[in-house]
């Protein structure tokens, strides 16, 4: 194994670790919310990170088939985000988010009175 191959192996391991951390942080945002668009955005980012994951695994294993999987996942993620955006536009704010927005507005108005 040449020097460059060893460096590539090290890069693959390091980037898989970094991507796993990014995955976990994004999951925290999806769970915490607080609103529906935040969760949709988190899912969109999750798809982007997963595409990177698949590309790195493709480099690691040498199977060229992984590029097709990444393309298909990108297409599905784009369509899912568009569909979610249409859903938000169609149905308005969720009941929880409406209550939270009203509470925040009352809180920000009080100090001026």
């Amino acid at each position, binding site marked *: 194994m040449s020097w460059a191959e060893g460096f590539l192996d090290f890069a693959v391991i*390091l*980037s*898989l670790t970094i991507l796993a*951390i990014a995955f976990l942080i994004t999951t925290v945002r999806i769970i915490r919310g607080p609103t529906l668009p935040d969760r949709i*955005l988190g899912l969109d980012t999750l798809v982007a*990170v997963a595409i*990177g994951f698949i590309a790195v695994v493709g480099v690691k294993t040498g199977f060229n088939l992984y590029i097709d999987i990444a393309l298909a996942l*990108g297409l599905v993620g784009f369509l899912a985000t568009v569909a979610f955006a249409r859903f938000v536009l169609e149905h308005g704010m969720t009941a929880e988010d409406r209550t939270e*927005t009203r509470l925040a507005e009352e809180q920000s108005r009080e100090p001026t009175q």
Partner: protein
Amino acid sequence: MILTVIAGIMIIVGAVFALVAAVGLLRLPDVYSRMHAATKAGTLGSGLMMLSLALVADDFATVTRAIAGVIFFLLTAPVASHLLARAAYAVGYRLWDGSLIDEMDWQDSRKESAPEKRN
């Protein structure tokens, strides 16, 4: 050999950009600024990692598919996030209180101090 080293560097840089997108998603205050972090950095990260896959592949078909995939992501990510931001703004999700100006709100009192006032 040089291509392999460049591919390794691109993998690491792409992973770091994905991490920056995730940290921005966690730390920024409202959905619109989170979108600013997540869309740009996330797309750049996954695009760099797919380009490095194109660099190490010895097959011409794989290289063209990887480049086509990167172009596809660069085209679709702004469209998706713009649609989401527009939908969230249209149904009434508020900006962060620290935002200085809301250019889509014509009755915004904060616009009084802005140089260009429309009424």
